[in-house]
C-alpha cells in the first residue's frame, strides 16, 4: 500500500491524458537518455495533446517531430534504443502498424535474443487505439493479441488514470521493448492520481479492480469501465480484474479469482475471434478444468471491420448491459 492511499485527502483527480503526460515528463526528467519521437508530438503537442508542453519543457532534441515515415522513425527508435537512448516512440493509431511493423516484429522483439543478450533494446512503442468514436475501420482496431503473440515484446494496456502514469514510467524504465496501448476513449476520463510511489509499479501485475463472488470478469483497457459499470448495474456479484498487461501475463491472479468464483467471463474491445481473450480462455480452461462451474465465455467485437456509423459501432462493441447479461447467464447456468 502506498502512503498516498493512506492519505486520500492528498489525491488529486486528473485526466488519463494528463497522467500519461506526467509519466513521460517524469521519465524525461529523470533520465537524459529518454526521448520522445513521433508525428507532431513536439511543437504541436500531439494530435490528441498527450505530449502537450513536453517540447517547450525539454526542447526539440528530446521531443522530436518526425515526418510521416513510421517505418523510418520507429526503426530509428529501435536503433537508438540499441545504442544508448531510451525512446518513447508514438504510433498515432495502432492501425498504422500496417506501415511500420518490421522494426517491432523483427527487430525490437528479436535482436536481444539473436545476439544472446548483447543488445539491450529499451524502447516504448506508444500506440493509441479505441473504437467508439466513429473513426472507421482503419482507425479503430485493437490488435493487442498480435503483439502478445510475439515473444520478446511486453504488452501493456493501462485502464486507469494512475496506471497511465505508473505503467508509462515502468515501461520506460524497463530494459525491453514495450508495446504501450492507450485507449482514446479513456483520454478524457478522470480518476485519482496519487503522488508517485517510491516503489515503481512492476509490469505484469493484474489488479482486482472490484471484489465479487459469483463471476470473475477479466478485462483490460477501455472495457474496464464497462465491466465495472456492469458490476454496478447487474444482478450478479462480479469480481472485475484489470489485467493491465498481456505480456507478462499474470495468470496467477486470474486463476486465484476463478478458483473462488468458478466462473469466468472475458471482455475485450478487440475482435473476439483469435483475440487475446482466446488465450486466457484456453489457459483457464486447461488449468481449472475441474473447478470451473460453467464454460469460460468471451465477449468481444464480432468479426467485422468496424463500421463508421456510430449506431452500428455501438451495436457491435460490448456494453455494460451485455456484460451484465452474460454474467447473469453464467450464474444461471451452473
Amino acid at each position, binding site marked *: 500500500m502506498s502512503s498516498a492511499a493512506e492519505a486520500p485527502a492528498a489525491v488529486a483527480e486528473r485526466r488519463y491524458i494528463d497522467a500519461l503526460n506526467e509519466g513521460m515528463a517524469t521519465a524525461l526528467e529523470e533520465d537524459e537518455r529518454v526521448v520522445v519521437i513521433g*508525428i*507532431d508530438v513536439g*511543437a*504541436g503537442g500531439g*494530435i490528441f495533446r498527450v505530449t502537450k508542453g513536453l517540447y517547450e519543457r525539454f526542447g526539440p532534441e528530446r521531443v522530436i*517531430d*518526425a*515526418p*510521416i*515515415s*513510421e*517505418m*523510418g522513425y520507429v526503426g530509428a527508435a529501435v536503433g537508438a534504443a540499441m545504442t544508448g537512448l531510451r525512446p518513447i516512440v508514438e504510433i498515432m493509431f495502432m*492501425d*498504422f502498424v*500496417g*506501415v511500420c511493423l518490421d522494426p517491432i516484429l523483427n527487430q525490437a522483439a528479436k535482436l536481444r535474443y539473436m545476439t544472446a543478450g548483447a543488445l539491450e533494446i529499451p524502447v516504448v512503442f506508444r500506440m493509441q487505439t479505441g473504437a467508439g*468514436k*466513429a*473513426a*472507421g*475501420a*482503419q*482507425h479503430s482496431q485493437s490488435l493487442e493479441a498480435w503483439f502478445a503473440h510475439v515473444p520478446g515484446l511486453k504488452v501493456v494496456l493501462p485502464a486507469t488514470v494512475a496506471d497511465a502514469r505508473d505503467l508509462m514510467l515502468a515501461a520506460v524504465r524497463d530494459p525491453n521493448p514495450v508495446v504501450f496501448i492507450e485507449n482514446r476513449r479513456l483520454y478524457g476520463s478522470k480518476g485519482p492520481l496519487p503522488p508517485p510511489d517510491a516503489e515503481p509499479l512492476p509490469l505484469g501485475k493484474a489488479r482486482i479492480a472490484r471484489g465479487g463472488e459469483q463471476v470473475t470478469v477479466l478485462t483490460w483497457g477501455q472495457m474496464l469501465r464497462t465491466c465495472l459499470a456492469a458490476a454496478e448495474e447487474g444482478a450478479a456479484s462480479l469480481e472485475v480484474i484489470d489485467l493491465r498487461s498481456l505480456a507478462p501475463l499474470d495468470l496467477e491472479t486470474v486463476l486465484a479469482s476463478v478458483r473462488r468464483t468458478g466462473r469466468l467471463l472475458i471482455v475485450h474491445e478487440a475482435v473476439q475471434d483469435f483475440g487475446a481473450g482466446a488465450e486466457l480462455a484456453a489457459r483457464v480452461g486447461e488449468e481449472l478444468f475441474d473447478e470451473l462451474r460453467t464454460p469460460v465465455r468471451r465477449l468481444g467485437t*464480432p*468479426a*467485422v*471491420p468496424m*463500421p*463508421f*456509423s*456510430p*449506431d*452500428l459501432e455501438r*451495436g*457491435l462493441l460490448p456494453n455494460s448491459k451485455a456484460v451484465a447479461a452474460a454474467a447473469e447467464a453464467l450464474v444461471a447456468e451452473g
Partner: protein
Amino acid sequence: MALIRAFETRVAELYRDGEIPGFVHTSLGQEAVAAGVGAALEDGDYVATTHRGHGHCLARGMEVEGMMAELFARGAGICHGKGGSMHVADPSRGVLGANAIVGASLPLAVGAGLSSKQLRQGRVAVAFFGEGAVNQGAFHEAVNLAAIWSLPVLLVCENNIYAEFSDSRTLTRVPAVVERCAAYGVAAAAVDGNDAAAVHRLAAEAAERCRGGDGPFLIEAETYRWHGHYEGDSQPYKPDEEAAGWRARDPLEVAAARLLEAGAASAEELEALREEAAARVEAAIERARTLPAPDPEEAYADVFGS
C-alpha cells in the same frame, strides 16, 4: 468548384454542430486541384484518394446526396454508413475511395494502372496525396513501380504546405516534390493549385500522356489548406500573414476573374452557379437529416462476397 466549396463549407459547420460524427478533413482552399484534375479525366478513369477526399469525389461526379448521407452515417449513404468521410467511395464512377492511411492511395492507383494496362481498359489511374505522404515509403515504392511497369498512373500531389500541425518544409530537405521525381525517372511538373484552368491544362496533357503509354506523370499542385488539419483544429502553427495571403488567392475568385475577363460568363451566371451549388448541398443535407441510421444487420453485411 462551387459545389466543392459549398459542400465543404457546410460539412465544416455540420461537424462543428455535432451533426456529422467521426473525423472530418475538408479541402477548403484546395478546390481548384480537384476540379482541374477531375475535369481532365474520362469516364471510367480510376481515382484513389486520401482522408481529404471529398472534393476529388465530387469532381468525379459522385452524388452529393449519397455522399452527404454517408457523412451523416445514414443507411442510404453511398457506403451504407460504413465508410464515412474518410472512406467515401463509388467504384461505379472509378472512385476507389478516400483512404485514412497516409500514402495508401499510391500503391492502389498503381494497381489500378496495372489493370488498365493489362486488360487494355484505356483508363488512367489517379492517385491523390498530400506532400506529407511523400515521406512515406509507399510513395517511393509506388512511384518506382509505376515507372518500371510504365503504367498509366497520374500522381497528383496536393502540396498544401502542412501535414497535420507540421510545416512540411521542415520535414524534408527537398520540399519541391517535382524535384524528388528525378529519382524515379518520372516526368513531373508543378502548377498553381489555386488556378483550376492551369491545373486542368496540365492534367489533361498528363492524362493524355498516360493514355498514350508514356507511363506515369506527377503533378505537384501548390495550394493551401484553409481550415485546420481536421475540423476543430485551431491551427496555432500557421502564420497569419501566410494564411491571409492564400485566402486572398481564393481559387473560386481566381477562376471567376478569369471567366469574367474572358467574357465566358457573367457575374450573374457565376452567382447563379454558386447558388445552385449551395441549393444542391442544402437539399442533400435536408434529405440526410431525415434518413434513418443503417439497419443493424448492415453491420454484418459485406465482410465477404460470394
